[in-house]
C-alpha cells in the first residue's frame, strides 16, 4: 500500500455534526427567477430606451447593454463549467480510491455549488461515499440520510442509498434500526435479481446475520447461488466471502476439519479479491480468522517478468 502523504496522515474525518452543519448551511437553492429573467429585462429596457431616446450618445446604450448581458452570461457559464470540472476531478479521485483528497475537494466545493442543485447532489454523494470508505460511518450516515431524503422513493438510486444506509446502521451497531430498514426493503428488492442493488442487500443481510451471531443461517446459503448473487458487487464481493468464512469458522468446533476447510475456501476467495487489511478494517470481527493461518491469496498480481518472452 502506498504511504499516505503528510497532509493525509494528519487528516481526521469530519464528525456527523460537522456534516450536518455544512449540509444545513449550504442547502441547494435554484437561482432566483428574478436573476434568470434579468438579462431579458435588461434587453427590454435597452430596447425601450433605444426607441424613446433620440440622443446620439443614448443610441449606443442598447448595444452596450447587449454586450454587458452577453459578457455576464459568458462569465456565468465559465464559472459553472469550471466548478463541474473540479467536481469531476473529485469524482475521479474517489473512483481511484484516493478517498481523503476526494473528500477534501468535495467538501471545499460544496458551498460554491449551492446554486447548482444537480452538482450539489453529486458532491454530497461523493462526500457520503468517501466517508463510508474511510470508515467514518456516523458522518456517512448523515450524508446518506440527506441523499435519501432528496431522492424520489421510486428511484432505483433511492433503493441503493437505503441499502447502503442499512449497512452503515449495522456497522454502527444500530441493529434494531438496521433490521427495520432491511425488512422494509425486502419486498422491493426481491424482483431485482442479479443487480448490484440486490447484491448489496444480500451483503447487508449477511452482515446482519454475522452481527447477530446467526452463523448457521449464513452457512446454509447455496454456495453457487451465493457467488452468482454477489458477482454484481465486483471485488467488494470479497467482504461477503470473508463473512461466510467467518461463519464457517465460528459454527464448527475448533478442530472440525470440514468447517475449517470451508472457512479456508471462502477466506481464500475473499483474499483473492481484497487485501486482508482492508477486510479487517471494514469488519473487525474478521480478525478472529487471522491467527488460524487460513491459506490466503494475494489480491495483487503475482510478480512476473514483464515483456520477457
Amino acid at each position, binding site marked *: 500500500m502506498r504511504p499516505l502523504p503528510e497532509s493525509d496522515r494528519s487528516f481526521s474525518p469530519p464528525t456527523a455534526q460537522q456534516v450536518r452543519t455544512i449540509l444545513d448551511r449550504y442547502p441547494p437553492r435554484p437561482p432566483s427567477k428574478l436573476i434568470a429573467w434579468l438579462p431579458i429585462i435588461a434587453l427590454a429596457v435597452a430596447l425601450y430606451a433605444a426607441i424613446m431616446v433620440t440622443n446620439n450618445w443614448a443610441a449606443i446604450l442598447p448595444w452596450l447593454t447587449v454586450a454587458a448581458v452577453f459578457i455576464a452570461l459568458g462569465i456565468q457559464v465559465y464559472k459553472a463549467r469550471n466548478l463541474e470540472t473540479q467536481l*469531476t476531478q473529485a469524482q475521479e479521485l474517489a473512483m481511484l480510491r484516493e478517498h481523503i483528497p476526494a473528500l477534501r475537494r468535495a467538501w471545499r466545493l460544496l458551498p460554491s455549488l449551492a446554486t447548482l442543485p444537480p452538482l450539489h447532489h453529486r458532491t454530497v454523494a461523493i462526500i457520503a461515499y468517501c466517508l463510508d470508505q474511510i470508515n467514518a460511518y456516523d458522518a456517512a450516515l448523515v450524508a446518506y440520510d440527506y441523499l435519501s431524503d432528496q431522492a424520489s422513493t421510486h428511484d432505483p438510486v433511492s433503493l441503493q442509498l437505503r441499502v447502503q444506509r442499512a449497512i452503515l446502521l449495522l456497522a454502527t451497531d444500530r441493529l434494531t434500526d438496521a433490521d427495520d430498514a432491511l425488512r422494509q426493503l425486502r419486498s422491493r428488492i426481491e424482483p431485482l435479481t442479479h443487480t448490484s442493488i440486490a447484491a448489496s442487500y444480500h451483503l447487508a443481510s449477511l452482515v446482519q446475520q454475522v452481527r447477530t451471531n446467526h452463523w448457521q443461517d449464513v452457512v446454509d446459503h447455496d454456495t453457487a447461488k451465493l*457467488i452468482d448473487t454477489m458477482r454484481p458487487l465486483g471485488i467488494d464481493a470479497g467482504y461477503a466471502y470473508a463473512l461466510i468464512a467467518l461463519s464457517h469458522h465460528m459454527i464448527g468446533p475448533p478442530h472440525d476439519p470440514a468447517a475449517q476447510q470451508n472457512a479456508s475456501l471462502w477466506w481464500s476467495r475473499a483474499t483473492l*479479491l481484497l487485501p486482508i487489511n482492508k477486510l479487517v478494517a471494514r469488519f473487525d470481527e474478521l480478525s478472529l480468522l487471522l491467527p488460524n493461518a487460513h491459506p490466503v491469496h494475494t489480491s495483487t*498480481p503475482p510478480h*512476473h517478468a514483464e515483456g*520477457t*518472452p
Partner: protein
Amino acid sequence: MTPYTSQPSASSKRPRAATSTRPYVFSPYTLHQQLLFDATIRWSIVTAIIAYLVFSPVIDANAPGWSTFLGFALVGAWLAMSFAASRVTHQIPHMTALIDTDPAAAERLLAANLRRIPLSRSIRLILYHRLAVLRHSQHRFPETAAICHAVLTHYPPALTQRDPLSVPTFGSGPALNAPGLGSHVRSHLLIMLVDAHLRGSDLLGAYLGLTELHRLPLNLVDLIQRVVLQTRYELAAGHDHAVLRDVKQKVNLAEIMPPAQCGAMHAMLALAAKRTDHTTLAHWLQQRAQLLCSPQQLQAIGIPATSF
C-alpha cells in the same frame, strides 16, 4: 480509414422522406447534405441581417414601411431557428434516457428530429451521436461504425493533445486531463467506432481508432474504456506481451470498472498470460475472473471458461 456505407448506395443518395414510425436510415451523403443545407440557411440569414443593417437607411428613404417589415421578418426568422434548436436541445436528455428504456421510442424521436431543417451544426452532430449510441445498443455494429466515422469527419478536431504513449497514473491528484464537452463526444464516438471494428474483426480500423483515442485528453471513464479496447485489440492481433505490459496498473484499473467488465478484463489478461507461459499469473487472473464473471458472461465476450 475506409469510407462506410451502411445501406445500399442507390437508396442513400438523398434524404428519405420516411414516416416517423420507420427507422432512420443513415447515409454519409444525407449527413453531408443536411449540414450543407443548415449552414446555407444560417449564413443566408446572417448575411441578410448584415445587409439590412448596412442598407436600411437606403430602404427607409425609398420605401418607408418596408424597412421595419424586413427587420421584423429577419429577426423572426432568426428567432424561429433558435426556438427550433432550443426545442431539440431540450429533448436530447429525454432521447438519451429512452435509448436504454425504450429504444423504439428513441428511434422515432431521433428520426423526427434528424429530419428537421435547419438545425445548428453542433445539435445535428449530437443527434447523430445519439443515433450511433442507439445503433450500438442494438448491436448493429457496421451501421454504428458508419455513423461514428461520418460524424467524426465533420467534428472539430481536439484542441489539446495527450502524450500518445502515456498510461494512467494513480494517486497523484488530478491525474487526468479535463476535456471539454466537445472532446467528450468525440472520444465517445471513437470508443464506439473501435468497439464496432473489433466486433467486425476489422483490426486495421480498430488500430486507427485507438491511435486517434491516444491523441485525445480523456476523462477517467473514457480512459478505462480505451484500456479495455486496446487490450481486446492486442489480444485479437496476437500481441500477448503487450497485453501483459503494466499488468499491475491494468488490474488496478479493472477493479474500478463495472463488475462484468472487470471480470472480462481479468479473463483477457489471463488468456494472454497463459499464451505467454506465465502460469502463476494466468492462474491468479483466471481464479479472479471466475469469481467476477459467470461462465455465460465469459462466453458472451468470446472467452469460454474452458479456454483458460
